[in-house]
C-alpha cells in the first residue's frame, strides 16, 4: 500500500474499546481532531465504560449508565466508526488490513492495539462449570448479579484487590461470601502484615468469611458448581465461584500477527511495537520489562502515544510508579512503592488501634520509598508525590507520619493540602485528571462546586476518594475571586438580591405573583429560571396566604402533579396515614387500587406509610378518587416542600415504658399541620419515652415524652448531613406542645430560605433567636401560631380531591393527542 500524502486523512484503527484505547483517542482528538479517520473495534457490546467502576456496579452503588465514559453519541459526534461486540480476529500487516468477526475489513495507516488483559483462570478440574465466573467485564458482573438473586453461597478465589471488591459486592447483594486465599495475608502485594490484619478484621466485621493459606484443588459439581475442594481434601459448599486470582495480558491477536511479544506486546518509549505502524497501550503491553494492572500508567501511556500518532511528539513514556486504593466503601487503604523494605531502608510507623489507623512509611536514604496507610489515607497523595519526586524529607522526617499539614509546619486548618501540588500531580486516579486540568476548568467555566468540576473534568465522579482534594482546589482557586464577588448568596443567577431582600420586598411592596416580583425587582431573565421561580412562588403564597395562589408553571413537577416523578417517568402515590396509624378500610382501599391499576411496587416508606410506586400519570386522578371514596385517604404530600410525616411510636397506650400518649399527640399534630407549605419538607415525630423509638431527635420538630411532660426538639435531620435536634424547651401539657409546634413552624415558614431545611436554618439564625421568638416571648408565640392557623384555612384542601373530583388541571394528566 502506498503512503498517503500529508494532506490526506490517515486511517487509524483501534483494537480494543477500553480505557487505554479510548483515552488515547480522546487525547489524540484534543491535539489533531481532523487528521484521522478513526475506526474502533470493541469485543464488548457497549460503548466505552470505566472498568474500575465494575466494583461499585456489583455492589449496587452505581448503575451501568453512570460508569459509561463515552456514549455512542460521543463516537458519532467525533466521526468515529465504532464496531462494538465485534472482535478483530486477524491483522494482515503487509496489506495493512484488520479482519473482524462480522466480516468487516478495515485498512489502516496506523494501528493501535489496546486489547487489555484476560482474567487468569486456575487450571483445576471443574473450572468450566456453570456458576464459575471471572471478574473483568460487565457481562461478568451481570452474571454475578443474576446468581446473587437466586443463589446463597459464594466463594471468591483470590484475596487481592479484585477478589475483595468482588466479595464485598456479592455480600452487598445479600450472598454469604467466603474468600479463599493462597497466602496467609490479604493483598500481600500491596500490604504489610499489620495492615493486612486490620483489613481482614474489618472485613470480617462486615460479614465476610476468610479461608487463608488454602489451595483450591478442584471445583465440584455436575453441570452447575456445587462446591470447591482444597488440597488436603476438605470441601466448601458453593452456588457461585468467582475467580479473581490475577490477569494476563491479552496478546493472542498480536502474536498471531507476528508482533514480538513476551508476557505482553513489547513496546518502546513511544509506545510503538516492533512494527512502527502498530502502537500498543494499556494492560496488553510490556514496557521496559514491566506490565501493569492499574489505570494510572495508561493515562501516561495514552498521552505519549497520542502525541506520537499526531506526530507532534517528543514525549517519552518511561514507566510508572503505581499506588493502590481499595474500593470498598468505608475502608480507607492506600499503598504505594516498596512497603516491605530491606536492610538499607528505615520504617516510620504510626499506629492507633482505637481509631483503627495504621501508617507505615518506608525511607531509603531520607527519601520515601513506599507507604502503606490504613484508616486514614488523606495524605496518600502527598506521600506518593514525595516518592515520585524523590524529595529529601530530612527536615520534617520527625513529623512525616502526621501528614502534610503538620510536616510542612503551620496550622493544619489552612490546609497545605493539594493547593501547592504541581500542576501535573494526578488528583483523580480513576479518571486520570491532573491538578492543572481541574484548575484550568475552574477558571474557564467558572465552576463553583465539586459537582460542577466533576461534570467538566470527570474528576471525583468515580470512586469519589479525591472529592475533598477537588473541593480544596475549588476553594483555593476561587479564593481571590470569592473576595471580589459580593459575599452574599443570591436567589439565583437571575438577580443579585438575597433571599431575605427578595422576601422583604414581597412583603413591603405587596407583591403576590412571581411575575410581579421579577418585574418590580428587575430580574435579568423575564421568566426567571427553575431555581428562582419555585422560591418566588413559595414566598408569595407564604407572605400573602389569602391572596396569592400557587402557580403551577413555577412549581417543580412533583408539586404540580401531586405525586413523585420516578426515574422512568411514572409516579409514586403516598396517601397520608396520620401518625402512621391505619386501619383495614384504608389498607383494603390501597390493596384494591394496587391491583386495579397494576402498581408494580407497594412499599412501606421510612415515614410510616405506604408508597405505591410506578403509577401511570394518566391513572393518577382515578387512583386518587378510588383511594378517597373507598378509604377516605388524602394526599400525603410526599412530593412537596410541605409537612411530610409525623412518625409516632405506640406510646403509653401499649408500650410498657410509655409515659405519655405519643400516638394521639402525633395524630393531632398531623391533623393541625397537613397541607402547610414550607421552605423545604418538614418532618415531625413523637416518641412515648426517652428510648425515642420514633427517632424524634432527627426530625425538624420532635417531641420526646417524659414523666413530667414533653421535651421539644428542633432542627434535626437524618438525611444527607445527619444532625441531632437541639432541645428547644420542656413543656407540661399537650396543648402547650401543640402551640409551640405551630409557632416554630410559622417562624420557619417566615424566615427560612426556600430549599433550606430547619437544620441549616437554625444554624444560620441561631438557636437563641428561635428560643427568643418561640419560648421567651409568649405574645409572639401566640401571634405566630395564629398566623399559622390563618394560613391553614387556605392550605388544607386535599389536592387529590380537587384533581379527581373537581377535575382541576385535568389536562396535566392526559396527553394533548394520541397518534397511533
Amino acid at each position, binding site marked *: 500500500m502506498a503512503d498517503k500524502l500529508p494532506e490526506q486523512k490517515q486511517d487509524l484503527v483501534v483494537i480494543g474499546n477500553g480505557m487505554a484505547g479510548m483515552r488515547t483517542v480522546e487525547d489524540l482528538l484534543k491535539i489533531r481532531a481532523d487528521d484521522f479517520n478513526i475506526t474502533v473495534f470493541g469485543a464488548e457490546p457497549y460503548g466505552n465504560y470505566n472498568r474500575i467502576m465494575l466494583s461499585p456496579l456489583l455492589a449496587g452503588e452505581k448503575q451501568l*449508565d453512570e460508569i459509561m465514559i463515552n456514549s455512542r*453519541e460521543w463516537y458519532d459526534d467525533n466521526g468515529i466508526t465504532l464496531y462494538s461486540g465485534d472482535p478483530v480476529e486477524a491483522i494482515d500487516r503487509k496489506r495493512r488490513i484488520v479482519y473482524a468477526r462480522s466480516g468487516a475489513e478495515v485498512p489502516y495507516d496506523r494501528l493501535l492495539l489496546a486489547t487489555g488483559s484476560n482474567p487468569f483462570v486456575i487450571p483445576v478440574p471443574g473450572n468450566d462449570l456453570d456458576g464459575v465466573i471471572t471478574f473483568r467485564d460487565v457481562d461478568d458482573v451481570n452474571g454475578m448479579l443474576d446468581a446473587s438473586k437466586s443463589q446463597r453461597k459464594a466463594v471468591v478465589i483470590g484475596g487481592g484487590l479484585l477478589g475483595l471488591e468482588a466479595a464485598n459486592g456479592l455480600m452487598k447483594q445479600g450472598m454469604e461470601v467466603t474468600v479463599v486465599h493462597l497466602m496467609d495475608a490479604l493483598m500481600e502485594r500491596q500490604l504489610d502484615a499489620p495492615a493486612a490484619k486490620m483489613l481482614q478484621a474489618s472485613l470480617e466485621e462486615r460479614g465476610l468469611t476468610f479461608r487463608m493459606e488454602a489451595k483450591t484443588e478442584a471445583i465440584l459439581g455436575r453441570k452447575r458448581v456445587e462446591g470447591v475442594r482444597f488440597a488436603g481434601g476438605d470441601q466448601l459448599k458453593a452456588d457461585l465461584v468467582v475467580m479473581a486470582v490475577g490477569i494476563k495480558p491479552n496478546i493472542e491477536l498480536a502474536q498471531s500477527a507476528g508482533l514480538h511479544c513476551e508476557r505482553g506486546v513489547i513496546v518502546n518509549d513511544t509506545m510503538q511495537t516492533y512494527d512502527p505502524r502498530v502502537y500498543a497501550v494499556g494492560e496488553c503491553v510490556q514496557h521496559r520489562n514491566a506490565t501493569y494492572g492499574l489505570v494510572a500508567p495508561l493515562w501516561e501511556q495514552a498521552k505519549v502515544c497520542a502525541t506520537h500518532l499526531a506526530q507532534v511528539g517528543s514525549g517519552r513514556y518511561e514507566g510508572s510508579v503505581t499506588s493502590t486504593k481499595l474500593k470498598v466503601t468505608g475502608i480507607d487503604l492506600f499503598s504505594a512503592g516498596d512497603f516491605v523494605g530491606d536492610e538499607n531502608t528505615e520504617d516510620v510507623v504510626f499506629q492507633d488501634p482505637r481509631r483503627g489507623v495504621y501508617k507505615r512509611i518506608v525511607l531509603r536514604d531520607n527519601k520515601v520509598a513506599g507507604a502503606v496507610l490504613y484508616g486514614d489515607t488523606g495524605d496518600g497523595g502527598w506521600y506518593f508525590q514525595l516518592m515520585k519526586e524523590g524529595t529529601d524529607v530530612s527536615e520534617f522526617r520527625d513529623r512525616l507520619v502526621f501528614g502534610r499539614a503538620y510536616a510542612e509546619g503551620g496550622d493544619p486548618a489552612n490546609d497545605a493540602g493539594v493547593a501547592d501540588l504541581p500542576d501535573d500531580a494526578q488528583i483523580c486516579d480513576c479518571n486520570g485528571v491532573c491538578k492543572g486540568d481541574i484548575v484550568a476548568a475552574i477558571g474557564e*467555566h467558572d*465552576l463553583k462546586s465539586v459537582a*460542577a468540576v466533576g*461534570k*467538566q473534568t470527570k474528576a471525583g465522579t468515580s470512586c469519589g476518594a479525591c472529592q475533598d482534594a477537588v473541593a480544596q482546589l475549588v476553594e483555593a482557586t476561587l479564593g481571590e475571586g470569592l473576595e471580589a464577588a459580593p459575599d452574599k448568596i443570591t436567589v439565583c443567577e437571575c438577580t443579585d438580591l438575597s433571599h431575605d431582600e427578595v422576601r422583604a420586598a414581597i412583603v413591603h411592596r405587596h407583591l403576590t405573583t412571581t411575575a410581579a416580583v421579577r418585574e418590580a425587582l428587575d430580574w435579568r*431573565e*423575564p*421568566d*426567571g*429560571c*427553575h431555581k428562582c*421561580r*419555585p422560591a418566588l412562588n413559595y414566598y408569595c403564597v407564604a407572605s400573602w396566604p389569602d391572596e396569592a395562589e400557587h402557580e*403551577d*408553571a*413555577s412549581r*417543580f*413537577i*412533583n408539586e*404540580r*402533579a401531586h405525586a413523585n*416523578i420516578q*426515574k422512568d*417517568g411514572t409516579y409514586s402515590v403516598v396517601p397520608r396515614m396520620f401518625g402512621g396509624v391505619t386501619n383495614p378500610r384504608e389498607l383494603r382501599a390501597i390493596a384494591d387500587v394496587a391491583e386495579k391499576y397494576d402498581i408494580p411496587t407497594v412499599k412501606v416508606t421510612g415515614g410510616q406509610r405506604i408508597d405505591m410506586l410506578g403509577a401511570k400519570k394518566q391513572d393518577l386522578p382515578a387512583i386518587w378518587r378510588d383511594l378517597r371514596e373507598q378509604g377516605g385517604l388524602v394526599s400525603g404530600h410526599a412530593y412537596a416542600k410541605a409537612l411530610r410525616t409525623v412518625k409516632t411510636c405506640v406510646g403509653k397506650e401499649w408500650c410498657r415504658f410509655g409515659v405519655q400518649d405519643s400516638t394521639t399527640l402525633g395524630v393531632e399534630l398531623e391533623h393541625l399541620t397537613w397541607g402547610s407549605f414550607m421552605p423545604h419538607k418538614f418532618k415531625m415525630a413523637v416518641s412515648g419515652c426517652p428510648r425515642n423509638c420514633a427517632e424524634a431527635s432527627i426530625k425538624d420538630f420532635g417531641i420526646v415524652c417524659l414523666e413530667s411532660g414533653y421535651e421539644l426538639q428542633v432542627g434535626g435531620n437524618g438525611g444527607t448531613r445527619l444532625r441531632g435536634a437541639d432541645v428547644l424547651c420542656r413543656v407540661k401539657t399537650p396543648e402547650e406542645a401543640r402551640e409551640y409546634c405551630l409557632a416554630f413552624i410559622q417562624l420557619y415558614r417566615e424566615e427560612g430560605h426556600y430549599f433550606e431545611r430547619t437544620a441549616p436554618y437554625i444554624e444560620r439564625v441561631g438557636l437563641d433567636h428561635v428560643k427568643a421568638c418561640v419560648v421567651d416571648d409568649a405574645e409572639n408565640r401566640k401571634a405566630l401560631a395564629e398566623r399559622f392557623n390563618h394560613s391553614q384555612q387556605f392550605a388544607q384542601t386535599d389536592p387529590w380531591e380537587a384533581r379527581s373530583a373537581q377535575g382541576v388541571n385535568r*389536562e396535566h394528566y392526559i*396527553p*394533548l*393527542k*394520541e*397518534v*397511533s
Partner: protein
Amino acid sequence: MAAVMTDAEWIEIGRLEDIPRLGARTVGMPDGDIAVFRTSADEVFALKDACPHRGGPLSQGIVHGRKVTCPLHNWCIGLADGAACEPDEGHTTRYAVENRDGALFLCPVPKE
C-alpha cells in the same frame, strides 16, 4: 439532511390554549411521546419527550425563556435547538410545530 415535509405529514394536535403558558403537553406517538412546549411569548416548540441525559420527561420540566429544565437532574435543554446547555452535552430530537392562527400542527418527522 433536512427531511422534506409535505403538508400530508402535518398532524393537527390541538389549540394553543390547550397548552399552559410556560408549560408543555405531550403527543403520544407509536415510537414514544413528543413534548410540545409553550413559552411566555406564546411560541411553541416540539422535542422528543426524552432528556439527552437519562431520558427524563422534558414535558414535565420547568419552562423559562426558550429553555426547559429537566425534572430528573436539572439539565437545561434549549427548546429551539434541542441542545443541552453548558456544561452538559447532548441533543434531543426536534420536531417542527406550527401555530396556524391558534390551531397547532406537528410534523412528526425529526428535523434534519
